[in-house]
């Protein structure tokens, strides 16, 4: 890797920084690159949005339409399925 990172390098390192801690000099060079390159800055923003949103899904789940529920027949089907499966495996 050249000491001046390309956009390809930076996008990869931004992603890696979300999964491991990068050496200090790499963090500095990325920061410098981001100051000058709005596309890489956007890419970083998008990666972070993917993470924030994915981890917010549970919250979204709490706002699901409460009026939708399994039908009585559906519940009975599932329970029957369970009973059969448990008796098969026991």
């Amino acid at each position: 890797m050249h000491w001046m990172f390309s956009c390809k390098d930076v996008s990869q390192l931004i992603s890696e920084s979300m999964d491991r801690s990068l050496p200090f000099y790499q963090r500095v060079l990325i920061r410098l690159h981001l100051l000058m390159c709005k596309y890489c800055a956007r890419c970083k923003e998008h990666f972070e949005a993917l993470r924030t949103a994915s981890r917010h899904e549970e919250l979204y789940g709490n706002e699901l339409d409460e009026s939708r529920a399994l039908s009585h027949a559906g519940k009975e089907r599932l329970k029957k399925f369970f009973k059969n499966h448990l008796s098969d495996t026991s």
Partner: protein
Amino acid sequence: MSKRKSDAAIIDDPESWVDHYGDFLYRFALSRVKDPAVAEDLVQETFLAALRARESFKGCSSGRTWLIAILKHKIVDHIRKKFREPPSDKIETLSDIRDSDFNDGGKWQVRPHKWAINPGKIYEQKEFFDVLYHCLAELPGRLAEAFMLREMDGLSTAEVCKVLNITATNSWVMLYRARMSLRRCLENKWLGEEQ
């Protein structure tokens, strides 16, 4: 029955799962797949997978979170099958995804757009998860799996490596490719209206 039955006690008693978690899982599935019959099937598949993997529930998360994590993987599998997009794990395909984003000098070939919605608040949009699940289903299977384990299930990189049986370096590369593809897919399908 005690009102505050612990999650571990519920998980130990599969026959009570339908009453405790059935509706929530069903609603969640329905919000993604829209078809009540499919949603019910997905709940059943989730319970079956959970039954087989019961040992892996250690009470560290809530029973609901554990089951939802299983359900999410089932939803992506379902969408993939529905649209007959066979997962491809070929290395050539993976490098194609990555290389098409940049020119030979490592500069952006397809520049990231400014998203029409504030990226930090994107999850507030109802369409977001619909598009995300479709984009996940279009990814090569193992990339989608790596992304979901890391970002949706919140596993550490070390745990992801263990589940997928890959090295740390491999996991970084796979997660990078998954993020790049998803970013672009969201942009193409939904968000990339502004330059």
